């Protein structure tokens, strides 16, 4: 990464190389003590004017290049919205249901606008924006893509509509230590869980720290987060407490769901949570190797899954999500894939394999499905977010 000092020195060196010299202008004035331009001063002024024209031309060319770059970045966005042909699942020749869209390794893979059309990067040095260990992903309102990154101890705020990016880690006097889960509420506030700081922190859309959600000691190791629009509550998976704790957005603890165990409604190291449009809560009970389902009131409905390496089993279940059609998606970090189940827990398909190519994973973790059925999967060890598209039957 270019340092800021190096960037500035490069810029100054480049300006000097154009021949732009302030002393030349002063020399022209100094040579006119009686108000008349001497031959020397006139020659100096002509030379200075020529230099300024050259400099203006170069600046204009740089602006055109930056604009062209912006246009090319817009093309990347279109690629994200418009599925590219190539990878589909299932791959046995049957009708495709999941389509690979894109991989996001840094905000620069999107259309994120750089300040001053990239001139700031030239001056200050290009910042390292690449994801380190993307852990959880969430697409908030107005295309605000949020990615937790424990490797960089920050949350990547990628405002795809305003084309702005920032890495958020500040908590007032402190900083994030291990951001894990992320979600947003109906008002657009961003919630980030930090498993080391044992709390959930609230940010506004611009990444400004608002407050800590709960008093210290309320949570033991918060991990997965989900917001239930129907109930207006925030669901926090407290891993060590083996519970899902329910809060109002103001931090009031409403209740806790589950207790440690393997029975119905019991949880064993819950890591991820998801709330669908109907308010149904899905919880990944990692060491029960199952997905537990609760109604909006917290009553146990069902669970599915068992440990094993056969299709439909779980070995290391991680993120869970549902699409608009009600299918349940469960990421498995050992399988390097996500499996798709129907609402009764029957396996429908599996997507992904081990590797670093398109549609492949290396220890995937979080998953998010937006209202357009785009599937975002945090691919930890590949340092990227992979985006898929659920292909509805009518659009096939």
């Amino acid at each position: 990464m270019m340092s800021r000092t190096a960037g500035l020195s490069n810029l100054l060196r480049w300006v000097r190389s154009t021949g732009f010299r302030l002393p030349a202008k002063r020399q022209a004035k100094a040579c006119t003590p009686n108000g008349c331009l001497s031959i020397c001063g006139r020659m100096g002024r002509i030379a200075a004017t020529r230099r300024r024209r050259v400099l203006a031309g170069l600046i204009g060319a740089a602006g055109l290049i930056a604009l062209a770059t912006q246009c090319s970045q817009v093309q990347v966005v279109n690629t994200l919205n418009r599925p590219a042909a190539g990878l589909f699942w299932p791959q046995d020749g049957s009708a495709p249901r999941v389509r690979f869209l894109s991989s996001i390794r840094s905000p620069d893979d999107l259309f994120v606008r750089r300040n001053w059309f990239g001139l700031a990067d030239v001056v200050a040095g290009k910042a390292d924006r690449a994801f380190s260990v993307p852990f959880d992903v969430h697409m908030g309102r107005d295309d605000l893509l949020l990615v937790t990154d424990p490797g960089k101890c920050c949350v990547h705020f990628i405002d795809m509509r305003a084309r702005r990016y920032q890495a958020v880690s500040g908590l007032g006097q402190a900083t994030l230590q291990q951001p894990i889960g992320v979600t947003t509420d109906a008002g657009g506030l961003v919630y980030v869980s930090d498993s080391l700081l044992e709390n959930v922190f609230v940010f506004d859309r611009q990444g400004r720290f608002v407050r800590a959600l709960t008093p210290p000691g309320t949570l033991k190791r918060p991990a997965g987060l989900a917001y239930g629009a129907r109930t207006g509550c925030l669901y926090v998976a407290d891993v060590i407490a083996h519970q899902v704790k329910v809060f109002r957005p103001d931090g009031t603890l409403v209740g806790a769901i589950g207790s440690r165990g393997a029975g119905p409604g019991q949880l064993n190291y819950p890591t991820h949570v998801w709330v669908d449009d109907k308010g149904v809560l899905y919880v990944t009970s990692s060491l029960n190797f199952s997905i537990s389902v609760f109604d909006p009131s917290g009553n146990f409905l069902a669970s599915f899954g068992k440990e094993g390496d056969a299709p439909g089993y779980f070995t290391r279940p991680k993120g869970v999500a549902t699409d608009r059609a009600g299918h349940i998606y469960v990421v498995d970090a050992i399988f390097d894939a996500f499996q798709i189940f129907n609402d009764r827990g029957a396996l429908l398909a599996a997507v992904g394999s081990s590797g670093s190519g398109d549609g492949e994973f290396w220890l995937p973790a979080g998953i998010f499905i937006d209202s357009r059925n785009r599937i975002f999967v945090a691919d930890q060890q590949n340092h990227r977010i992979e985006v898929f598209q659920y292909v509805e039957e009518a659009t096939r």
Partner: protein
Amino acid sequence: MNFEAPWGHGMRAALRVALAAVLLCCGRTLDAGQARTSPTLAMSSAPECTQCHLVWLDDFAQPGVEWLVPYQRDESFRSGREGAESTDLMCYSCHDGYVADSRARIRLGYQHPVLASITLLKRPKPKGVPLLREEEVYCGTCHTPHGPGPMPSAAGRATSAPAPTQTVKLEGNAFLRLAARPGPISLCDQCHEYTSTTLVGNHRVGLSDFPLPPELARQHGRSDTEKGGIGCQTCHTPHGARYPSLTLLGETDSSTAGLCAVCHKEDFSKYGLGRFSHPVGVSPMAMRGPDDRATAGPAGGNPKPKFPNGELVPLTGDGRMTCLSCHDVHDSRVPGGLLRQTPLDGSLCETCHPGLADPLQGSGHDLRVWAPEAKNIAGKTAVQSGMCSACHIPHKGRNVSLWARPDRGAGRAVDRLCLSCHSSGGPAVTVLRGPMTHDSEVNKTLIRLRAEKTDPSLAMPVYDDEGRPAERGFIACPTCHNPHQWAPDAGHLPPLPKTASTQAGHGDSLNSFLRRRSDEQICKHCHGIQSLWRYKYFHSSLRFEK
């Protein structure tokens, strides 16, 4: 709602790969009956086991199960292959932040070497920990999710490996196979032999009531026990260390002694550094002698000084001294003090202070010869502590000269150094300052002017109130005498002849630790050419007999 193809080739291939890796590398007998009857750490289909040992699931133990790859009936623990269960990815599949996440410490900073051959240590292979390919250290050498206990064998029974007698609390101990504390049955001792019983060669450990300094606690340092005490992890950390020696702090952090000074503070009992201690963080090249003679550094300016045995003096990358330049905390061959060289003959000091110790051998300032019973402020004689340490000690010195003799007289600071011996009650009582002594209150400007007219390297030093050589100051004993030089004409001091007149260390105007010969130079230096005849008989014995 319904998918037409409930199962994709991609997932199938992924599972084939995963299963193949597990089967190839796991290496466990799949006899279900044996698994149920085995003792501790035997194969089990309990979720706690199968979450890593996937092939231990009951489904695989059913008759008629078809394997995707042929099962190999040797055991990974003994076969020397790193099983799929012990790969870092298997650990990270859970320890990725939801349970705990130590990846930052694994990836950042200096790490204990892995996949390194144990034969480099030139000692017998450890018997209490497994090795990869029978000689390489790997993650499983130190870590196990099973906690301390006998290792499983191919038959599922405990082996004869030494069972740890120390209780290891797994939480917070990173699932270590044995306790990472010094002792005969410890994890570190398996490869790094620690002879804690002799206290020779290694830093002292134990001291169960010794609290962990907060500076080390902030760097993930650990006490030997829960109550306190010094252990391996008090100073070292195997992962995420900031320094190549896997230490928690550098030797010269914060322009002090760094890691050592965290415990060896000024007032740390008899092991404290004291107010006046030998400097660290300085270059031996910038060293100046105790007198005002500018010295060009060790061995005439050698930036890489060597001990007399040929070993290089350990310095920092930019050539500065650390505590480890003199001390070897793990491989010292010198009893007491963990020193790299013996201090008894002055060779340790002579490495960086050439020409100061050798000329003293056998001279009047070699207290091993002339005052073998006299003790320094540390309570040791010159025979016990060495020739240099009779007058200078590197730690807990009395002043900036690191003076080690007890204070006996009154006067200026620099004079009191000499008076600590050359006074009544001192070991040099036969060589006392007489009643006719050069006045110290002189025109200092005149002295400096006279000195500057001559060769600066031969200037007669004057001293400030604290006893340090100064541009302007007082005339003191070392102004005329150089305690490290018996005779000015001899670059190397010959042994003092034991004649009747020199038995007590007396000399004459040609030696007597004078900086210059008194017959023609030493007076002239300050008093001009006229002093040659004016003070001609000043040092004559006839003058004192009158």
